[in-house]
């Protein structure tokens, strides 16, 4: 970050400082113009009136939205636990010495990495009931999300395991551990520590995915907003508040991921371990959603 800032410009001289000041003023004017335009747009349609925002200072409305948030958290937690466990198994499968296992796990990951979660949700909503598999509402959301997120988790775990120095595995084998033991006692503990930031980032993606509850009619946060707005007719207010809640929760998680990343950087800096091959956190690059 600091490095990039310095790359493209020197310490500003008098003329550059003047230009920076001008750009700042211009930027501020454009920003202020956008805010004014937005406020006028709200005001001219009567959406700024106090009584259209007042409900969001009352407890019953917040209790309803927070109940929705709790449902989001529960769905996200269930999805996270199940898809992380499944993802780990798939990653181990892809790295296994047995060809059929490698092939099956690879096929699963490649298929579900490139099929949209919404399509899987439609399958659980409209296809599976015909074959007598009618899950409760909660699982209609969680099962498809687990299926698609486990593929993403598998790729994260695999990248992390492969990024670990081979010498670790070789040393484990040299002291007489079996392959399974090497994986469980030597490789995984180190890989997981390295992967913590990526896993937390994936958690943000997964929490965002639970908004698909909107399609399933599972009353998580977004669908709660929908239900609420159909009662109160406060459409834009409700959805802005819902967006704000998502923003606060996810930004905290992202921040946590960055803290973990910085801490890992310090740890590995001291021990000089290889980190270059790790998937960078907070980008969609490695974990296709």
């Amino acid at each position, binding site marked *: 970050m600091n490095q990039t800032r*310095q*790359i493209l410009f020197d310490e500003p001289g008098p003329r550059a400082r003047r230009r920076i000041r001008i750009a*700042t003023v211009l*930027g501020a004017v454009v920003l202020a113009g956008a805010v004014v335009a937005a406020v006028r*747009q709200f005001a001219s349609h009567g959406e700024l009136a106090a009584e259209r925002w007042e409900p969001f200072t009352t407890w019953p409305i917040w209790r309803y939205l927070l109940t929705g948030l709790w449902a989001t958290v529960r769905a996200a937690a269930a999805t996270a636990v199940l898809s992380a466990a499944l993802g780990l198994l798939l990653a181990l499968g892809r790295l296994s010495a047995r060809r059929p296992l490698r092939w099956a796990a690879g096929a699963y990951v490649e298929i579900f990495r490139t*099929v949209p979660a919404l399509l899987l949700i439609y399958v659980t909503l409209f296809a599976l009931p015909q074959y007598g598999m009618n899950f409760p509402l909660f699982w209609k959301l969680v099962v498809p999300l687990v299926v698609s997120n486990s593929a993403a988790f598998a790729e994260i775990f695999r990248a992390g395991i492969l990024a670990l120095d081979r010498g670790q595995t070789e040393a484990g084998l040299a002291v007489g551990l079996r392959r399974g033991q090497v994986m469980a006692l030597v490789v995984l503990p180190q890989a997981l520590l390295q992967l913590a930031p990526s896993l937390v980032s994936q958690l943000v993606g997964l929490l965002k995915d639970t908004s698909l509850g909107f399609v399933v009619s599972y009353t998580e946060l*977004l669908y709660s907003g929908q239900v609420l707005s159909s009662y109160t007719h406060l459409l*834009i207010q409700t959805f802005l508040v819902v967006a704000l809640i998502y923003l606060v929760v996810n930004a905290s998680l992202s921040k946590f991921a960055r803290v973990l990343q910085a801490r890992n950087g310090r740890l590995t800096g001291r021990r000089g371990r290889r980190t270059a091959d790790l998937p*960078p956190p*907070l980008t969609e690059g490695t974990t296709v959603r």
Partner: protein
Amino acid sequence: MDALTTHLSELGHGLVTTVELTVVTTVGAMLLGIAVATLRIAPVPLLRAIGTAYVEVLQNLPLLALLVLFVFALPTIGISFPLFTSAAIVIAAYEGAYLAEAIRAGINTVGVGQAEAARAIGLTFGQSLRHVILPQGLRAVIQPIGNICIALLMNTSLAAAVGVVELTQAANNVNLLEAQPIAVFTGAGLAYMLLALIIGQVTGLLERRLAIVR
């Protein structure tokens, strides 16, 4: 299998809509991504803050919440577009944040000496970005950008939730008529996999042609 052949035109329309949405959005998101990445490395603190805020907000909101906000709520303050346009704007804005981060990562890989050399021969910020930094930075992140494009393809399916009849919605409609879920949804899934495969192949080709081996 009948369901697929008798409703080929509906599914075909859906597929075309998905492809259109993906192409339009990719171009928009790419331009936006370059613009935001530029903001984030600009010498002006305010512009950097705007770029950072954009990325933070858009990466931490669910795409579906943005779509719902844009399609259902904005008309109440008099802002509305055709459905396809709305979906394209929102998805481009959302993926633009991810692309901006990928591009910024690419810019970070360009050696400091390159930028210093560019400044030494008298290029301005914009010139050194356009002629020296971006051409190298973008080449370093072709693979991540390709992965984001595949994610974008999958995310276009969310437009179905606000009423755009693209591939996912078309498949669902056909299934509701024909009640042949296995054939219909497998077909749609295969179409998505094929599109993702094409994006992956194009990315691989570009990577081989353009990437700089350091």
